[in-house]
């Protein structure tokens, strides 16, 4: 709901500072420290308020369960609000009530800007890199704890209480992370550079999305001291109503993260639609921007349903409504429907960016134009549209609309057609190419390898009869780890190795990078491939006890998972060493890419482009010596002003039909 508050927030900037503009952001003392202070104060206030207002039946419930859900919710809510106020995100929305215009954007130098509420999309992108890595490593450590418990089928290291909390936290944290892992860091950083814009459409919304995202991690982690939640990341009701106080953190956490996702997607979609440089026709848009557009569409339109769902869950737990309780007129199916109506598009929120990165990197390392660009772009949009019509394939055995199962089987299998386009694009681009196996290229090839298994097992899952066997088993679990981790996370790290020189100006170490890649690739497969078999042999998900005959496979998986975890230690050492301790300056265009994002000097100027570029071509003109450069920064325009579109006549939303 905060969107419209800030939707027009960035607008005053174009008009310049007006009399009565709010004080400029320069020298703002608000940073992550004040944000923490605000969060703590807000938490305490909310807790006090919650305890103060609870009375009547609610008091009886809170007394008997020793858990005051109202207090927990209010504490978390005010904690988040305090956090945002502490970082300064609320200054402008409040100043707006007085009719003040947005302060001018002042560039800030130094590392301190990374700890502040900043409107520069490049800074936000780097903040997001750190943010998603924090999420990823927290979730990863928990994953290793899960695998530790599963080392032995019957004796317990953590016991069921802690184990189920770990499973739930791992799922939630990783899902939250995966929705933003590419859109946040790479999307925010690169999309304006790729579309030839000086800014995002709504920089305040963008910055807000990051700080909301970070608060989401803190909220979900509060579940541990509050007793955890026993529902897994799917949060099925009525177990949700029954669960201990940590469930409130789950609902609040997904509400908060959902808000952040909506904000990020909103800003991304509007930016790509309206801030493309002149000449950046839809047919010239880099494929990565297409994937961001598809993802942003899903983020903005699917996530509100999740928001509605967790909101209803929160009411069931605080206001004693009975939306998910059958015995009082609600329905346990309602949550399943709402959750998966969001949940399935979310799966593609986590797949599309990986495809985008892979397709964007392939031409660079094959030295060929992207094959079947239009089919690829259409595939991404097609996947996005179809993903709204498949959600009940998660509920094939639930007894909901059993006669609709063939229909959902059809839509689910149909979605493999546009997903297959990404293989068409990849294989076509590799045809007779000059393949250079640089580090990012290895990650891209690994994505194609892993996603092949993830995708083909998806066909097993979509087939209703086979679904009877594999639904809810480790087979499903291995399937989505192959698509999300094997696809998206590999693509993210590939993209990070590829674009970090652009983002920070320093190269990553090649040798350490290769060690990281090979460890990650081998042990990822060794961790998750056995789990396909384990699932087929009858091991349900999220159990702490399993059949002793499955121990060997589980142990292979567990031990591999430790080594997989170690590969990220290698990565972290590489990152810290090459980016902070001993930076090695990168050449301006280390991969010899033709992309627009590599045409600017390093470090990137505050406004990206000193002249708004006029786009002349798509960025994949490899092997065409006569091709025009990707963009004209004014020099060509000055010489031949009448031969191509210039600024004066260009419309921001021009659409071209030029044959590529």
């Amino acid at each position, binding site marked *: 709901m905060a969107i*419209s508050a800030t939707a027009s927030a960035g607008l005053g900037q174009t008009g310049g500072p*007006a009399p009565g503009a709010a004080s400029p952001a320069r020298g703002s003392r608000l940073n992550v420290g004040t944000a923490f202070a605000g969060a703590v104060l807000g938490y305490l206030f909310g807790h006090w308020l919650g305890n103060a207002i609870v009375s009547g039946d609610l008091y009886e419930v809170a007394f008997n369960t020793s858990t005051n859900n109202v207090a927990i919710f209010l504490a978390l809510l005010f904690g988040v609000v305090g956090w945002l106020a502490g970082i300064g995100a609320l200054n402008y929305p409040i100043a707006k009530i007085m*009719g003040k215009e947005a302060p001018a954007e002042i560039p800030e130098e130094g590392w301190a800007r990374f700890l502040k509420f900043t409107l520069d999309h490049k800074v936000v992108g780097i903040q997001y890199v750190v943010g998603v890595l924090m999420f990823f490593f927290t979730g990863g450590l928990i994953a290793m704890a899960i695998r530790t418990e599963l080392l032995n089928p019957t004796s317990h290291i953590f016991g069921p209480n802690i184990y189920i909390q770990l499973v739930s936290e791992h799922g939630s944290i990783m899902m939250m992370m995966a929705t933003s892992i590419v859109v946040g860091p790479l999307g925010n950083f690169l999309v304006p550079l790729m579309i030839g814009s000086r800014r995002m459409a*709504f920089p305040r919304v963008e910055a807000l999305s990051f700080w909301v995202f970070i608060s989401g991690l803190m909220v979900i982690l509060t579940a541990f001291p509050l007793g955890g939640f026993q529902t897994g990341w799917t949060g099925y009701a009525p177990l949700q109503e029954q669960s201990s106080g940590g469930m409130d953190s789950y609902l609040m956490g997904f509400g908060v993260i959902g808000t952040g996702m909506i904000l990020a997607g*909103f800003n991304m979609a509007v930016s790509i639609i309206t801030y493309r440089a002149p000449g950046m026709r839809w047919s010239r848009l880099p494929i990565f921007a297409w994937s961001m557009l598809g993802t942003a569409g899903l983020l903005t339109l699917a996530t*509100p349903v999740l928001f509605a769902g967790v909101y209803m869950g929160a009411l069931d737990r605080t206001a004693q*409504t009975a939306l998910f309780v059958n015995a009082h*007129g609600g329905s346990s*199916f309602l949550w399943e429907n709402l959750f998966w109506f969001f949940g399935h598009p979310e799966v593609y929120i986590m797949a599309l960016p990986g495809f985008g990165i892979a397709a964007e990197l392939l031409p660079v390392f094959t030295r060929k134009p992207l094959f079947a660009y239009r089919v690829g772009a259409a595939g991404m949009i097609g996947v996005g549209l179809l993903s709204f019509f498949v959600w009940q394939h998660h509920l094939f055995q639930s007894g909901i609309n059993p006669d609709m199962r063939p229909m959902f089987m059809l839509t689910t299998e149909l979605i493999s057609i546009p997903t297959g386009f990404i293989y068409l694009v990849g294989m076509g681009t590799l045809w007779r190419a000059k393949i250079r196996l640089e580090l990012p290229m290895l990650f891209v090839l690994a994505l194609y390898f892993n996603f092949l298994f993830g995708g083909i097992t998806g066909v097993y899952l979509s087939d209703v009869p086979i679904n009877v066997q594999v639904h809810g088993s480790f087979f499903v679990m291995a399937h989505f780890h192959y698509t999300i981790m094997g696809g998206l996370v590999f693509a993210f790290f590939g993209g990070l190795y590829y674009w970090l020189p652009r983002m920070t100006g320093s190269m990553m170490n090649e040798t350490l990078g290769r060690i990281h890649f090979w460890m990650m690739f081998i042990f990822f497969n060794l961790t998750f491939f056995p789990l396909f078999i384990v699932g087929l042999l009858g091991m349900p998900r999220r159990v702490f006890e399993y059949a002793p005959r499955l121990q060997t496979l589980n142990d292979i998986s567990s031990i591999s998972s430790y080594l997989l975890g170690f590969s990220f230690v290698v990565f972290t050492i590489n990152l810290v060493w090459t980016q902070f301790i001993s930076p090695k300056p990168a050449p301006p265009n280390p991969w010899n890419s033709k992309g627009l994002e590599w045409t600017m000097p390093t470090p990137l100027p505050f406004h990206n482009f000193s002249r708004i570029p006029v786009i002349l071509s798509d960025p994949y003109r490899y092997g065409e010596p006569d091709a025009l450069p990707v963009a004209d920064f004014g020099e060509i325009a000055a010489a031949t002003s009448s031969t191509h579109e210039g600024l004066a006549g260009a419309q921001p939303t021009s659409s071209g039909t030029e044959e590529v």
Partner: protein
Amino acid sequence: MADAPGLMEPAEEIAYETRCAEGAIWTGTRLLIGVIAMAFAGVGFAYFYLRSVNSEGLWRPHGQTAPLLLGTEIAGAALVGAILQSYGLFRLRRGLDLDWSVATWATAGAGVLGCGLQIWELTRLGFQPGQSGYASLFVAWGPLSAALLLVGAYWSETLAARALRMKSAVAGDGGLSASQLPRARLFRASAEGAAYFWWFITTVSVLFWLLFYIV
């Protein structure tokens, strides 16, 4: 971004970026409506789902209904807001800045009034939240409805306040309705968006009014 340090923008770049920003407001308004519509679609789905499932016959025992008069007033407030905001825009296009201001302040007032009535109504329900599917869903929908009206009121209020502050700056350039300064153009784009948004609020309010009170 003419003010941006180290950046000398030619006039056509400023014009171009202004057009982009106008487009962003246009697109952003529509997308925002999409976002909120999907959230309310979740509630609407819940309504029809619980109604069709009718668990234990407890969808809506004895035809429970929230206070009809209050509900009608709330939907009415939304409708009044939309009409006022659109009428104001109509007058603004005719160059009548003051009419627009009055209408917009009134719209903001209607939004706050509707929000307040909605919250008050939640304290005056003849049923308890967990009593039936209808009761639960009504309790869930009420705060969302109040929040939506408040968002509309916020948008109108910020616009009206902004117009007050901007008045003198654009006075020499044809006033709010005609000035070609980027900030005035963006202001008008936002005013247009607000009118559009208020019709969306009204649509949602009336649809749910039909569902919860009439059907």
